[in-house]
């Protein structure tokens, strides 16, 4: 029975990680195709990828979009959560619902909606429009994390700060935000991870400057190559690093 449960666990992990493992393994393929047989170990595809100007530009764009859109989503989410946690308005349940709602809408629908809006407003597609799309998908997440983290302790510390002469922006900057440092960091890193991997919105809302997932997609169209595996591995490495950093810095410390 005990052996069986270990086996179950092993199979489950194998199922989850085999594709990733294969992807990473064949990024080191010496031959021209990322398929068996493995023809020997080589870093030539990494060399090619790191020397590819378009890919590196896309990497930079992805990074920029992820950081800027996450920071914006975090600011908006934090302010909304702060207000809704503190003030009880007749419509606050509805407002909370509306803020969370985008989570339930598929990325494709959000992208199409934004495409229509930008089109009718005459706004040209760019990294900014992708960023706006990523704010839309990450705002509910940031709001939910911040809102859940605000408690009575927060409220009474803010009250004390006001009592001691703090203006509203000082309350936010010196008391509310620092007290929520851990959840704020968690929300930010999660948003960055989501934005970093996101394809549909990035694909539909960009034109000339594209993000990394879109660039990878166009590489795939010209056929399989270990270079794609190498890029995929790099993307995976960044995501894993972010998640591990989050775990180490934020959740570990919060305990």
């Amino acid at each position, binding site marked *: 029975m005990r052996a069986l449960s270990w086996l179950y666990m092993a199979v489950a992990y194998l199922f989850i990680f085999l594709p990733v493992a294969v992807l990473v393994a064949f990024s080191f393929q010496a031959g021209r195709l990322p398929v068996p047989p493995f023809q020997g170990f080589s870093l030539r595809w990494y060399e090619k990828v790191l020397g590819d100007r378009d890919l590196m530009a896309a990497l930079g764009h992805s990074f920029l979009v992820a950081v800027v859109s996450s920071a914006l989503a975090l600011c908006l989410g934090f302010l909304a959560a702060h207000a809704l946690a503190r003030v009880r308005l007749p419509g606050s349940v509805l407002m909370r619902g509306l803020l969370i709602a985008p989570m339930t809408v598929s990325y494709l629908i959000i992208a199409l909606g934004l495409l229509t809006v930008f089109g009718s407003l005459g706004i040209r597609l760019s990294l900014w429009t992708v960023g706006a799309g990523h704010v839309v998908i990450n705002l509910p997440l940031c709001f939910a994390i911040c809102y859940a983290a605000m408690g009575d302790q927060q409220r*009474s510390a803010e009250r004390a*700060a006001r*009592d*001691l002469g703090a203006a509203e922006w000082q309350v936010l900057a010196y008391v509310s935000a620092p007290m929520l440092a851990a959840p704020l960091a968690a929300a930010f890193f999660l948003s960055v991870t989501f934005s970093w991997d996101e394809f549909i919105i990035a694909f539909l809302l960009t034109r000339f400057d594209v993000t990394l997932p879109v660039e990878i997609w166009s590489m795939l169209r010209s056929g399989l190559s270990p270079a794609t595996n190498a890029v995929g591995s790099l993307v995976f490495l960044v995501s894993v690093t972010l998640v591990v950093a989050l775990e180490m810095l934020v959740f570990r410390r919060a305990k």
Partner: protein
Amino acid sequence: MTAGVLVRGVSQRYGQAMALDDVSLEIAAGEYVVLLGPSGCGKTTLLNLIGGFAEPAAGAVLIGGRDMAGVAPKDRPTTTVFQDYALFPHMTLAENVGFGLRMRGAGKAERAARADEMLALVGLAGRGDRRPHELSGGQRQRVALARALAVSPDVLLLDEPLGALDLKLRRAMQDELKAIQRKVGTTFVHVTHDQEEAMAIADRIVVMQAGRIADMGPPREVYLRPKSLFSAGFMGEVNRIEVAGGRSALGPMAVADGVLCIRPEAISAGGALRLGRCVVRDMAFFGAYLRAHVVPEAAPGMVLVVHLPQGAEVAAGDVLDLGADAHVVL
């Protein structure tokens, strides 16, 4: 550094309930006033109105002669010590205490010096670099006090500041609060439901009941000569005997009509107002006194509580001839 508070005809309602009903109160500069009452009597509401956390529906609050209508808490010459301390967990003690000065634009050196001075005042000298979670409840309360006093408020508001402390610590902190108030000279307005705490520290006690002031005066006055039945009962144990037309259940009583109120410790064998012969039903040793329940022979349905001297040799079933040394009729 210190100012009087004038509360004029203030009313406040929460939904249907009247939290404060036309309350007027004058607090002198440098006075230590305790607002005393059961939960829901409006004492905390009154404190919040003075601190600016709520605006009165009617009436006015003046501090140092200045009308506080529309003045936010941050702009009032008041600071508050909260029941849950409300310290900033991400700041050191020195940063906590210096926070008010930082908001007023004071420099780093000035803040540090003031924080040291204030922490020393509350007995936490040299602990400025600790964080709140390293402290005990009593120490946190001291930091909250230091933080509120650091900006030299005219009026310090204390919202059940000792409520979360154990009894022994509470009694020790009472003495300290009083000593600190004498030293800084600031007007203190302190809310509590503990009448012993009120008597230990107040210059003047304001007893509140259902949104109104039931009684006020120095502790001795409120305890010995209460102006309402509620206040008599809230300040301590009291025996109540109804008197009408000079007669009571105990026989003729030479007092005015109303409810005759007698404290248990005012009853003795030699008291001037005779209560007659009473049978001791039961008794218990309380350290400083013997607490006995006695039943008057004239009124077998009545039970009086009596505090007898520590050394009295009394047993259940004994008959005592008792009288009251002091009484009030309400």
